[in-house]
Each structure stands twice: as C-alpha cells, then as structure tokens.
C-alpha cells in the first residue's frame, strides 16, 4: 500500500500549509526553473527545493525516486549538448560534432531544472493528503465530478495493482512468459495479464455507479464538504512571496540574466 500512497504524516511548516499554497509553489518552481537556462540559476532553484524537502522531513519517503532522478539528469547532460548546438567556446569535437562550453552548460541547467520540478511535485504529494488535494482542486475551479474521479483513481490503484499482480502470478504459474523473450513475444503474452485484469476491474466497478448514487452522488450538483480548507495568514505570506519571486525571475530573464542561450527556454 505504501508504494502507492506518497503522503507522509508530519508536523513541518510545509505540512501545515494550505494545499493551494503548495500548488502555487509547484507552479512557481516550474516558472523559476523554466525561465533560466544557466546552471547557476537553475541550480539555485534546485538547492531551494532540496532544502524544503529536507526541512519537511520527507527525504526518506523519496528514496525510491533518487535513481530515476539521477538517470533523468544524466540523460539531459548527454542529449542536450548533442541537439542544442551553438556557442563560441569549443570544448572538444567527436565524430564531427562540436561540443561547446555553452551547450554543456545548457545540458547541466536543464538537468537541474528537471530534478527541481520533479522534487517539487513529490514534495506536494508527500505533504498533502489526497482528500485535501481533491478539495483544493475543486476550490481552484475543477468540476467536482472530475476531482472525485481523480481522487477515486488514487484510492483504487492499490486494489487494481493488487489484482494485476495476482493475475500476473497466476498466469506465470500457468506458463505465460512475460519476463524473457523478444519485445514482440513479451507484448503478445502481456495480453494474458491485461484481459483478465480488465474483466476483473469491470466486475469490481460494475456496481460502483449504483453504490455512489445510493449515497447521494449527483455528478453536477452543488456540494457541501466535511473537510475544510483554511487559507491563513501564513499561506498569504508564503504564496505572495513565491509569486513575487516568480515575477522577479521573469523580469530578470527579460533583462538578460540567467541565460546561456538567450533565444531558447
């Protein structure tokens, strides 16, 4: 279960913020890291996000993701110098491709940018309960039926994954091989997992509409909520600060700060 639920109970400052303030932070991290393409600037953004992760006490919750994050950063470091050509300071030439200091710095900046973005999203999810997030999304204007559907997906994923793993074990016991062989045979054999999972899921959810309607679910009706969100003074200060910094970062970029390549994001 814990693999599918990222939320970690805690009493940190970040835990206590309204989910809307945390969503504002994620959006602003995306803005801060996207407007600059110099590694010093995107590295600063990454440093700030890492500090928030450590202060919130959720770093251990993210241990499953570190390998993916390092891989993502490495791919960026390799790919962007190949595709984002330009710059005057040649570092070396290999197989007719000129690698410049600027293109390598751009790759490093994008690597920092990507890791900062991923970590900010994970920070939101590790410090916010799904039901609070659902309520925040409706408060931000998402139709209730859509927010309900999204939170239902989060809730039902453990059951669906459990069914899937049971079917996978049962089919492998019957000799279905989805582990080895070429890509085509693995693809073909995986249908033996997907079809029973779909049928099981439809059986499980066949009565869901009746169950939720009998409890008063009307898709487009106005609703009241048991949970309450309070946007307190600390949320106002926090949100105003991150929004100000986002505006400042855009102003800086427009004035030529924080760029290796001025004409690209």
């Amino acid at each position, binding site marked *: 279960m814990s693999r599918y639920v990222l939320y970690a109970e805690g009493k940190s400052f970040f835990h206590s913020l309204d989910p809307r303030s945390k969503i504002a932070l994620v959006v602003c991290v995306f803005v801060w890291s996207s407007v600059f393409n110099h590694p010093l600037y995107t590295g600063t953004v990454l440093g700030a996000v890492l500090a928030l992760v450590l202060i919130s006490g959720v770093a251990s919750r993210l241990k499953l993701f570190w390998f993916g994050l390092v891989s993502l950063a490495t791919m960026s470091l390799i790919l962007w110098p190949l595709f984002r050509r330009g710059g005057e300071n040649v570092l070396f030439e290999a197989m007719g491709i000129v690698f410049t200091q600027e293109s390598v710095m751009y790759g490093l900046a994008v690597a920092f940018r990507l890791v900062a973005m991923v970590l900010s999203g994970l920070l939101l999810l590790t410090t916010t309960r799904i039901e609070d997030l659902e309520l925040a999304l409706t408060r931000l204007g998402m139709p209730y039926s859509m927010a309900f559907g999204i939170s239902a*997906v989060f809730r039902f994923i453990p059951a669906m994954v459990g069914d899937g793993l049971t079917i996978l074990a049962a089919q492998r016991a019957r000799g279905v091989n989805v582990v080895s062989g070429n890509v085509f045979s693995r693809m073909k054999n995986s249908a033996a997992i997907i079809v029973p999972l779909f049928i099981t899921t439809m059986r499980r959810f066949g009565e869901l509409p009746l169950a939720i309607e009998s409890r008063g679910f009307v898709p487009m009706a106005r609703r009241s909520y048991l949970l309450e969100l309070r946007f307190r003074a600390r949320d106002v200060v926090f949100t105003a600060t991150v929004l100000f910094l986002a505006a400042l970062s855009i102003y800086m970029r427009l004035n030529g700060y924080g760029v290796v390549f001025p004409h690209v994001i």
Partner: protein
Amino acid sequence: MRELFSMWRYTQMITAFVVSAGLYAALLFVFAALPIWIIPGVTAVRPGNAIPPFTSLIFGPAAAWGSAVGNLIGFDILGGALTIGSIGGFIGNFFLGLVPYKIWHRVFREEPHCRTLSSLLKYEFVILVHSGVVALIIPYWTELVGFLPFTFLAFIIFFNELISAGIIAPVLMALVYPRAKRVGWLWTDVMKGYQYTPTQVKSHHKLGTLLVFIAGVVGVWVTMFVGVGLGQPLMQFAPVFAGAPLLTVGGVFILIFAIGMALLSKD
C-alpha cells in the same frame, strides 16, 4: 466534441473514467517490475500503452480523460516524473484516448471487433494514426519548453506506442469487445444520442481523418528529419538541430492536426 464535457453528467461515464485511468496507471505499475527503459524517467516500452486505444473504443470520451489522468498519476506522479513535460504528456495522452474513437465513430461502419481482416486493418490504421499524433504532440512540447529534444523522443514514442498498441490492443478488442457490447459497456450505450458507427460517412469526416493522418504519420517523420538537419537549407534556415526550424515545421503539422480534429468534431 461536446461529449468530452457532457460525459461528466453521467455517473457510469465517471466510473468508466476511473476504470480507464486506474487500469492504465495500474498496468504501468504491474509491468514496472519488468521494465524495458528507453529513457529513464521519461519513457519505456510499456504494455500498458495498449490500454488507451482499447478503452477509447469501449469508453469513448471517458477514455480520453482516463488516458490523460492515468498517465499523469501512474507515470508522472507515482513514477516520479512530474515536470513541465507532464503538461505535454497530459495533452498527448488525452489525444491518445480521443483520436481512436473519434475516427472510428465518424468514418468506419464496421465494428472494431478485430475478428475480420478488414476490421483488424482499420483498427491498426487507427493505432498508426494515434501513435503518430502522440509522437508529434509530446516531443513538440518537450522541445518547446527545453525539456528533451524532439527528434530523439518522437522516434522512441512513435515506435513504443505502435509496437505496444499494434500487437496487444487488437487481441484485447477481439476478446473483450463482443462481451462489452453484450453487457452494455460501450460509451454510446450510456450516452444516448451518439452513434457508435456512422450510418453515413460524410466527406468532411473523411477529410478530417486524412488531415489527422497527414499530421500524425507524415508530420512526425518530416519534423524528425528537420530535427536531424535534413531540408533546412531549402527553408533558408541555418543548419541547427533543434529550435526554430523544427518548431516551425512541427507547428504547421499541429495546425493541420487541429483542423482535422475540428472537421471530425463537426456533425
């Protein structure tokens, strides 16, 4: 395209959305134990990719939203890949679930049971088009926002989607479609007033399908070629591998795709 919004008025369609998204996300997890990574954190050969074209023809608009949200939750959020690239992922996966049912219920009179050669070929055509569309949209976004280069990602997504969906989805349809039809799981069984297959194929729907095909299949390859420097002198561009030339050419094909979808949406 009204059905994309009116579906939220039906509890059964909301359930179909939960199933589409949950199944897509869950399969990403089930097969995560046997990963075939292509770009870590970005894309892998995923049997779950067969789900959108399959659920699309069963659940219609619910599958479009379901594919978008399923990928967002299963891959971006729980998989630790939530970045600005996820916006493109959301839009691309939305069309992954939208294009198959939209084309089918506008231009093909035969049912998608994949039990005859003509039904199978039509379904493979739909899969080819939807693979091209997603391979155009997601990498275009990642190139635009400086996340990953178009050419590299488009090539991988196109074949990843085509192989996964092209092999598995027809098997799923052949096994599940007759049962789904019998028990009333099809989206037109819930949303009355829509036809699952057309009684008459209109010329603007044919043109719309052609434009979506040109944008998705031809467009993605032309843009990839531009991305490796081919043809750029013809367009008076300096020989660069990313940026303005690629975004210009890709943008033209995205415009063609938008016109095609608009024609398909018109009654």
